[in-house]
């Protein structure tokens, strides 16, 4: 009853994913059967159930994995400061106290380049990183040199995480090696900052393309792969999430390197967060249920999580206005 080699891989070292030379045969072997994937995600929430104190713990875990985000044209410094205040104290103190949780904060604050300095300032003396969306977000169609420059400027401004968008056309045109080079250049520009590669899955056409693009991004050195900008017609969905986490698992099993996952867009209910946590736990395992490997890009989710926590605390369903907005 021993476990043969290969069935239980431990990470070779918790090193940052260095990437790999482009391995096209591997990329091209990736498959994703849509109906089977849909069946899996449809039964996922029916197969696992988390109740009572455990549920509260899962909600808190979800909060610690949120990339609290504002990426709108009307963002101002004051708006970003308010967001950061919420990031530092995402749950009302009395609720936290009742749960015997001394402190909790979100995973990161995610903003546009111009808001980085405001955010960095507002988050001083915390270890909450500032993430910046970059590379001509959301469409990624500005001149390539400017996109690289944008990363460098954001890093200089203090962003510890850079959320880059890829050129979707390179996927649709099958230009895998160009795509690999693009992401690799982005990664180099990030330096020590972590790179989250946004696939914009809603614009890639098929789950198979998503599986293959996920592999390319990881080979090019992604620290995270992220579903969406939040601006596509379809954002994070469970089938897409399943395809991406399976690609992460494949990459880990072959290389020993952990790559993170960030679903973004459309996750607004506490129940949805539980399903994503279940997905991660089932397909990737506990190691991935940490903010360094799992983030949820969201803005309104936090409010619902807070309401559910209050319900847990006082035994009655809560209302929105009882909780501070971000």
């Amino acid at each position, binding site marked *: 009853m021993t476990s043969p080699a290969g069935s239980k891989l431990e990470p070779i070292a918790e090193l940052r994913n260095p990437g790999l030379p482009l391995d096209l045969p591997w990329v091209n072997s990736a498959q994703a059967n849509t109906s089977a994937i849909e069946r899996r995600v449809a039964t996922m929430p029916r197969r696992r159930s988390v109740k009572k*104190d455990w549920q509260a713990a899962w909600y808190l875990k979800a909060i610690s994995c949120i990339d609290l985000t504002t990426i709108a044209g009307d963002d101002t410094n004051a708006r970003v400061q308010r967001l950061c205040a919420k990031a530092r104290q995402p749950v009302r103190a009395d609720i936290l106290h009742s749960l015997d949780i001394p402190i909790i904060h979100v995973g990161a604050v995610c903003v546009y380049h111009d808001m980085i300095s405001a955010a960095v300032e507002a988050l001083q003396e915390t270890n909450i990183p500032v993430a910046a969306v970059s590379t001509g977000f959301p469409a990624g169609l500005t001149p390539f040199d400017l996109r690289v420059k944008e990363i460098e400027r954001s890093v200089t401004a203090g962003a510890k995480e850079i959320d880059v968008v890829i050129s979707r056309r390179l996927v649709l045109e099958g230009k895998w090696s160009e795509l690999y080079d693009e992401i690799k250049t982005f990664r180099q520009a990030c330096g020590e900052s972590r790179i989250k590669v946004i696939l914009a899955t809603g614009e890639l056409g098929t789950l198979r393309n998503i599986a293959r693009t996920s592999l390319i991004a990881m080979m090019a050195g992604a620290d995270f792969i992220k579903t969406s900008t939040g601006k596509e017609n379809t954002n994070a969905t469970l089938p897409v999430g399943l395809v991406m986490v399976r690609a992460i698992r494949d990459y880990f099993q072959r290389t020993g390197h952990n790559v993170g996952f960030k679903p973004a867009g459309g996750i607004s209910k506490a129940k949805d967060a539980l399903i994503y946590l279940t997905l991660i736990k089932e397909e990737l395992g506990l190691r991935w249920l940490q903010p360094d490997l799992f983030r949820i890009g969201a803005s309104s989710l936090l409010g619902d999580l807070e309401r559910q926590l209050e319900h847990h605390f006082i035994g009655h369903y809560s209302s929105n206005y009882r909780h501070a907005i971000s």
Partner: protein
Amino acid sequence: MTIRKKIDMMAYGPSLESADAAMEWLTNRGNQFGHFIDGSFTQPTNNFESQNPATGEKLAELTQATPADVDRSVTAARNAQENWERIGGPKRAYYLYAIARLLQKHGRLLAVLETLDNGKPIREARDIDVPLAQRHFYYHAGMAQLMQDTLPDRKAVGVCGQIIPWNFPLLMLAWKIAPAIAMGNTIVLKPAEYTSLTALFFAELCHQAHLPSGVVNIITGDSAVGAMIVAHPKIDKIAFTGSTDVGRKIRRVTAGTGKSLTLELGGKSPYIVFEDADLDSAVEGLVDAIWFNQGEVCCAGSRLLVQENISRLFLSKLRSRMDRLRIGNPLDKSIDVGAIVDPIQLETISQLVQAEHGGDIYQSEFTLPEQGYFYPPTLICGLHPTDPLMQEEIFGPVLVSTTFRTPSEAVELANNSRYGLAATIWTENLSLAFEISAQVVAGVVWINATNLFDAASGFGGVRESGFGREGGWEGLLPYTKSICKTPLLSSSVSFEGSQSLKYDVDRTAKLYIGGKQLRPDSGYYQKINDAKGRLIGHVPMANRKDIRNAVESANSAKNWLSTSGHARAQVIYYIAENLSIRANEFASRINMLSAQESGIKEVQKSIDRLFSYAAWADKFDGRIHDVPIRGLALARNEPVGTIGIFCSDHYPLLGLISVIAPAIAMGNTVISVVSEAFPLVATDFYQILETSDVPSGVINILTGSHTELAPHLAGHLAVDAVWSFSSSDISRIIEHESANNLKRTWVNYQQDYDWNNIQAREFLSAATEIKNIWVPYGV
């Protein structure tokens, strides 16, 4: 434990479904049950225990039925049947609809009760068993409604005895009862002794639905009660789901009784993974294939065949997945694998695995619950077809596996089994998937999915997995029969005499085997006299060796089944053409033999019949069932295989052509044992076959004693079906011997058949098996 600690652990924690309502239901009935006969419950007596396999606790005491109980329930069903049929389909539809609604209203309690009784995870009982049971009643309410319009020439069979297994107690009940009562039958059903509680709850629902008394009777007890039902003379049909061994016994016991029979038996279903499959999804599919319901599933994908070049990767993914399965209290909503139904079954599984010395065994590590009967999910890889576990059904959470190199080797391995229930195929290449689905021997095929079920699609197997289909249009056939009445057959004797007719040149009739005219192995011939008593020739007396040779030839002519319907039609038309050229000769031969003047009529009718089946050859289309998935469930008519046929004695030509034409039109090969009394027509006929482009081995013609040949043909393990329209009393022996490999039989019990007015569809159905191929799709 603090919440802080829980955040670190991120465990699911317990999430128990409450058993209170189900336990209260049991308590309110004193935890004791009698039978449900003629609309009410009998006093509990003669008790045996029903227990919860997850805890070993007693749930209730049930009553072991006595012969008198069986008699009473059969009588109740018999008395209710006429009226139940007479009220008509639309009225019956109201009742089925009411039952469906009641099943829905009590869905959660039924799910909990099923989990308590059977040990299956509540998630499965709640999301699969109970909704599918409801669906069967809704669907068949519709079938009752439409019966008059869609099946005008069918009527109810009568009283059905139904015996169901313990793996899906409520669902199997629904599969059995819904189509039966929709078609106007009444029933006596026996649930498995381990798991009778949901059936007894169902009995209460029948009462609440005001179902007329006696339409549904439910009696409890062990296999002895099953045996009483099977042997009961007043039951018209037996439907059994369970093990192949018991199915075989039932076939033997019912042989010759005239009871119609459907058997849904065991399997060792292949699960084939090709190199280009979505491997992660295929691994997940295995969870649904072999760890669904603890592997206690007749169609479980229990035999994993993986393409060699991906097997390491695939098996490593599979082992990781096994490590994440959760085993434990089946009432916990986060449990994947529950308890084994009974300690005896647990022991059987353990022993089978212990006895296997080949391969590498892998079991994920976890703590088995202290109470109850649990077995860990198990993978044994590196096995070969020679290993017993590659052949024997385990009926537990044990997967065995081996590898293949090429698609054709995959098919060869897949079909290297006595069973033929289901098959699963994973590949992103649809062309490959359809080719394999055509070649694999199974009643159900799932492409890139597994264990998909629906009331609209037939379920059932081939080979030793039994016969008959449940669900869909095809599932109604076993619960209906033709409205045509057939007269009793007069025995047919050959003529005696001592004179002989002189021919200028002597003729020697031979056997026609593998496209060749052959002398009989025995070296003996039988004299044939005409109606005037004159000796007009000799025919060979075939024996078991000739049968063996004929079966070999028929089985080596399997290219015939892949010939197109159009091409088969051409051959059949050509036979008709050549027969028509020699019509007068055949007519006078028939007249001479039978002392009647109807020869030319019989020849003409035979030509018509050939035309008719030539027409059908490319028109007996399959269907696409309307199942609730995004995808197709294709019901495809496939040839049965090799069919042995004892032909009518009375119609030496028409009786032969009427059976071989539909058989070959559908792609079967045939061994026909021709009219015993008037065989010379058939031995003339092979000359026509020889000139009509019939590939050798497709049609084989034997002469000789039906009584002598019946046990050999019916017992031959490489024959897939046997039909008999003989005047000899061979129905019982055919049905009895057919049990060896559970071949399909269609026998006449000495009833005549109206050869001048046949129902073509009846023959076409007998000549085909429906294979349901599920193909989900999506971008």
